[in-house]
């Protein structure tokens, strides 16, 4: 199995293209342009050079000794995407797609953002190349990630608030799609997760797979063997698919994607799409067929997570496929568990993780003690927690920060 989608962008029954007809020609143009660079050595060299010189890759694979000892089980390594330029893995995809947009001659870039990390990454690469940048962000996310809003504006981007729905990532994607359908000729939509119509889930996965390729090489260097378990948080699913993909062929490597369990199991209280008891069912949203949180009428449900980056009603179609064939397991971490993991990692390793990544750490905290010290786990530390410090202070102290 090579884990590639078919010509219509399907992995099994998941994926495809469900968009207004107006977007089909630009999507076909994008697909053609992407497949032209996918195996183009010059493009790939340009991509990797920028990741190295601009973004600081490769990121380290760090042995979390005190955390491992504290949990008393598996040997835990952290893939340090938090050390990437702009503070998360999102820069990998932004660099890849901005090079493609330039090749396509597009001058205006739009993006959606949840936690703000993809918006910051997009604003950053637009500044790097002098391109116009508009970022859509839900009003609720602008409130809880105010620092990232300021960063984007500092980088010269226009941030447009979205007041529809729950005012989070899904609503920002709707608004970005509306902008794209209105400005098809001039505009490149730089989608930030492994979501949306084909070729986005494939393209984002390809650009993020640098994480897993490095991690695979690094663990072989350090331990001279493959890891037993990979753990990563799953919102749309870009950091996790980026880590998992280069290991999919290694059947002995177990993989666990961690969804946001939020504050309860009822529809609206979490963002765990594979949680069937919690309302997750196959459906079509924002261009792709995958698992969705929805009500009986097929209306998309509101979601909740402590972390804006995981607070989304759908999940990338390749994840839905990997779940359906049992290759990847999906688990949940609640808000409280993520918050505890946020503090644990800060105290034991001197690393403040993003609240998104804290969900992965929380799952490691759960399963590592059941593993033996000669077993190896890699957790993708997808981003750093500086952006979350104010929000966490409010939750821990019960008082608003200044």
């Amino acid at each position, binding site marked *: 199995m090579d884990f590639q989608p078919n010509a*219509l962008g399907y992995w099994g029954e998941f994926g*495809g*293209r*469900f*968009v*207004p*007809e*107006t*977007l*089909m*020609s*630009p999507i*076909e143009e994008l697909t053609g342009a992407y497949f032209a660079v996918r195996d183009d050595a010059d493009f790939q060299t340009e991509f990797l050079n920028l990741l190295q010189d601009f973004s600081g890759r490769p990121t380290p694979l760090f042995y979390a000794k005190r955390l491992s000892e504290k949990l008393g089980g598996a040997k835990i390594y952290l893939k340090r995407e938090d050390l990437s330029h702009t503070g998360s893995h999102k820069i990998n995809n932004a660099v890849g797609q901005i090079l493609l947009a330039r090749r396509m001659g597009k001058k205006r870039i739009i993006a959606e953002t949840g936690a703000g990390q993809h918006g910051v990454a997009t604003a950053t690469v637009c500044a790097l190349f002098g391109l116009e940048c508009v970022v859509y962000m839900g009003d609720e996310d602008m409130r809880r990630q105010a620092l990232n809003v300021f960063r984007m504006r500092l980088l010269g981007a226009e941030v447009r608030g979205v007041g*529809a*729905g729950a005012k989070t990532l*899904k609503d920002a994607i*709707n608004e970005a*799609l*509306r902008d794209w*359908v*209105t*400005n*098809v*000729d001039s505009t490149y939509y730089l989608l930030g997760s492994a979501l949306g119509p084909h070729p986005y889930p494939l393209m984002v996965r390809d650009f993020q797979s640098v994480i897993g390729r490095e991690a695979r090489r690094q663990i072989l260097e350090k331990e001279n063997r493959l890891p037993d378990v990979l753990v990563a948080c799953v919102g749309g699913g870009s950091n996790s698919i980026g880590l998992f993909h280069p290991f999919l062929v290694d059947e002995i490597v177990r993989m666990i994607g961690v969804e946001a369990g939020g504050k309860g199991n009822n529809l609206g209280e979490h963002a765990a799409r594979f949680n069937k008891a919690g309302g997750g*069912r196959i*459906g*079509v*949203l*924002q*261009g792709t067929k995958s698992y*969705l949180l*929805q009500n*009986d*009428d*097929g*209306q*998309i449900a509101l979601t909740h997570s402590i972390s804006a980056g995981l607070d989304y009603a759908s999940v990338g179609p390749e994840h839905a496929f990997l779940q359906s064939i049992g290759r990847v397991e999906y688990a949940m971490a609640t808000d409280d568990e993520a918050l505890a993991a946020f503090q644990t990692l800060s105290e034991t390793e001197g690393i403040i993780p993003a609240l998104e990544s804290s969900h992965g750490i929380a799952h490691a905290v759960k399963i590592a003690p059941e593993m033996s010290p000669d077993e190896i786990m890699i957790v993708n530390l997808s981003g750093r927690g500086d952006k979350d410090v104010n929000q966490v202070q409010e939750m821990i102290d019960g008082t608003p920060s200044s």
Partner: protein
Amino acid sequence: MNRIDEKFKQLESEKRGGFIPFIVAGDPNLAATKNLILLLAESGASVIELGVPFSDPVADGVTIQAAAERALRNRIGVTDVLETVKEVRVEGCETPIILFSYFNPILQFGLEKFASAMKTVGADGVLITDLVPEEAEDFRRILAEKDLALIMLAAPTSSDERLKKICDKASGFVYAVSRAGVTGARNEMSNEAENLVKRLRTFTDLPIAVGFGISTAAQIEEVCKYADAAVVGSAIVKEIERSIELVDVIENVRKFVENLSPN
């Protein structure tokens, strides 16, 4: 022959352009929707487009988004929309009705079950905003078995190759989107629409309706010089929104629509 084909035959023999109003089911409530359909039928609608509200209407501008939100506050679902069609048929309304939806609510209802229910209640066709021809074959076949129309959208950005694919899947009529963008009233019609209709004629003998951005009688008249019908959506939905606070929503919308209707 179904009601849509009959209606376009009649329009052709009378050498008239068609008028296709759009409203969202359940906006502001189902009782009003039923009365609005009857009113639109009386006021010269050739075909009525009845919108199924959806939580994430990416193809719609602010007016229809707001209408869908109002309908969803009433928890209107596919079942309610079908029930409304049934009720107006009982009242004797014979105007063709097509359901206008995003794919997910129909998918969750079940494609086969939806087609059967459409047939039972007397709906004539369906248009799915986010179902492009590459994804439409299963649904087309299910609908065709019951002589129900699948109205396909064509856009100015569609290549000739795509227009051919679209026309191959379409029945009833083809909906030509007048310009790139979301739904919503505009002051000026783009000349892209006329060009698109001309291109579509080389691929199909089906009637062609033009929609997106049409809000005045003058625009309808202009569109009907080159197309078979004009769709008015957001302008009517806006009038419904404006009338919500008034005593008689229906009477207010009647005045607006009577000024639009080309006949």
